[in-house]
């Protein structure tokens, strides 16, 4: 593959600006595509060229494959970066991009397709040596069999109807004393609900963390992992704060899971960036899924590794080999990202509209990725994330202090934003102690809103 000279950025918002910046720093020309609602977007203003590809509705613009490929054709782009969301994990899009003679800046369509199919993905990663949530194969015969399996996996476990769904025919057994009851209950309910009493057993995680491992692979067989990110601070499956390294891992656990993941990626033959997401509980990792794209939270990894992931994506896509091996990658300090959304910090109602004064925090260790500017109007059609504040410090405490300081300097007038929620979070003892799981944020928000109402 030849060096890429002009990239079409098939995305919007902060990530489009992120990609544009990386291109500009590599001397690569940029083409911004945008809907009619995004004509004033920062990255559209900054791009070398821009093409309007459709109306505000994403399905007719950012999700329209013909519009994007036509824009690439008329602008003579030679590669397309999909960003995240939209078409980034659409294998058909990746395939069509390549069929039309453009370079897709990401993994192969086959790998996107494989990881997009939950069952096939799980089978593939098991084969490649990645740990998954243990589950019984075939139906559980009787209560004794259930106990045997429960002891193998370790309690708690969950008994689930093979034909099940919608939460019926499911029962958790907290300890070995509960397993017989749970088995009989689940079987009876399964029989009543689905006419099929067959049940299977899975290990049940009560308070897992969400920890994901970033990988980077080239087309020449080189694979490295860039450590993990802890993304346990989620609410309704939306990540709000991410950090690296995870407060729950030590260096040997990091090296161990990293090596497992690198080997698996190598075996699967994956290329470009990717993330393996895990649940983590009591020292064990359990595969959730693989994201075959750049992630929102990639900057925390960049901060602790000193590696520009978008630059690496472009280099790998142009056929270049990685310029470093695993031994060259050093983790330095701690980084936290706060996602700042245009939404009410308590009700979470979206808050699009015109930005009044805008002033981003500055100084040592502070990075802001945002397409906002004073006078910009946040359109109501898309995701509410309007800025990312990424802070780096030599250790987690320094990082937290810097985050407090910079959240206090951040001015986004005219909209409700999640800044006040982040400020509350930074004062929460559990968060300060790194003591949280994937359920923690939901409870924190509820409690915090309740106490505000008093």
């Amino acid at each position: 593959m030849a060096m890429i000279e002009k990239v079409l950025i098939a995305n919007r918002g902060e990530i489009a600006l992120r990609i544009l910046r990386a291109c500009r720093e590599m001397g690569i020309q940029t083409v911004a595509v945008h809907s009619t609602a995004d004509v004033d977007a920062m990255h559209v203003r900054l791009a070398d060229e821009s093409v309007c590809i459709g109306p505000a509705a994403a399905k007719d613009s950012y999700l329209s494959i013909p519009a994007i490929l036509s824009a690439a054709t008329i602008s003579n782009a030679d590669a397309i970066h999909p960003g995240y969301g939209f078409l980034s994990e659409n294998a058909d899009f990746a395939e069509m991009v390549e069929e039309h003679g453009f370079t897709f800046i990401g993994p192969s369509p086959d790998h996107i397709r494989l990881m997009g199919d939950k069952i096939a993905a799980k089978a593939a990663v098991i084969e490649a040596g990645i740990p998954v949530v243990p589950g019984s194969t075939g139906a559980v015969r009787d209560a004794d069999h259930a106990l045997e399996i429960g002891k193998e996996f370790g309690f708690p476990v969950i008994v689930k109807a093979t034909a099940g769904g919608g939460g019926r025919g499911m029962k958790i057994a907290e300890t070995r004393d509960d397993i017989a009851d749970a088995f009989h209950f689940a079987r009876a309910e399964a029989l009543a609900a689905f006419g099929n009493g067959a049940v299977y057993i899975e290990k049940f995680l009560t308070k897992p963390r969400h920890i994901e491992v970033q990988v980077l692979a080239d087309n020449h067989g080189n694979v490295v992992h860039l450590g993990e990110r802890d993304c346990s601070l989620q609410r309704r499956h939306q990540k709000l704060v991410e950090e690296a390294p995870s407060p729950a891992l030590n260096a040997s656990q990091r090296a161990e899971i990293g090596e497992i993941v690198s080997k698996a990626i190598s075996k699967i033959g994956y290329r470009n960036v990717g993330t393996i997401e895990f649940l983590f509980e009591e020292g064990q990792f359990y595969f959730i899924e693989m994201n075959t794209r750049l992630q929102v939270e990639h900057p925390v990894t960049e901060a602790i590794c000193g590696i520009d992931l978008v630059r690496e994506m472009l280099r790998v896509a142009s056929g270049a080999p990685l310029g470093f091996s695993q031994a060259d990658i050093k983790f330095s300090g701690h980084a936290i990202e706060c996602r700042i959304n245009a939404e009410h910090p308590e009700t979470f109602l979206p808050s699009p509209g015109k930005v009044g004064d805008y002033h981003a925090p500055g100084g040592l260790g502070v990075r802001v990725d945002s397409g906002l500017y004073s006078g910009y109007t946040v359109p109501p059609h898309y995701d509410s994330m309007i800025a990312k504040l990424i802070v780096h410090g030599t250790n987690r405490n320094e990082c937290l202090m810097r985050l407090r300081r910079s959240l206090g300097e951040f001015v986004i007038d005219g909209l409700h934003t999640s800044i006040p929620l982040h400020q509350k979070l930074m004062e929460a003892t559990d968060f300060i102690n790194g003591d949280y799981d994937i359920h923690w944020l939901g409870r924190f928000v509820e409690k915090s809103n309740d106490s505000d109402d008093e």
Partner: protein
Amino acid sequence: MAKQPKPDIDEKLVRKLASLMEETGLTEIEYGVDGINIRVSKSANIAYSTAPVAAPAVPAAPVALEQTTNAAAHPGTVKSPMVGVVYTSSDPDSPAFITVGDTVSEGQTLLLIEAMKVFNPILAPKAGRVTQILVESGSPVEFGEPLVIVE
């Protein structure tokens, strides 16, 4: 076109005022001297045009931009429903579908737009007379770009 030679625009004067405006941060300048009267202004939104543009974006002269804007606002404007390449005839050897001054009927093909190797006919939304053709054959068009004015 018109019979009498219209007084020409002194582009240099306008440019000078524009650069003065740029320099001073003004948003409007009206200037009258020796029978010439010039008023230039810059809308608040575009005030951000001194802004973070490292390389100039889509090359479009201010005058062309204004024309496009006017065309976009015209009620008889047919806009491009997609991004692609516009063609004024079915093949290079054939005559153009329409020329300025033609009377067209509703549903008549005005242009073709090629997107993804498919040629999409652009049909007249209503009967009328073609007063302007704003694109050239073979040129790229964006979504929403004015193509033709039918009055």
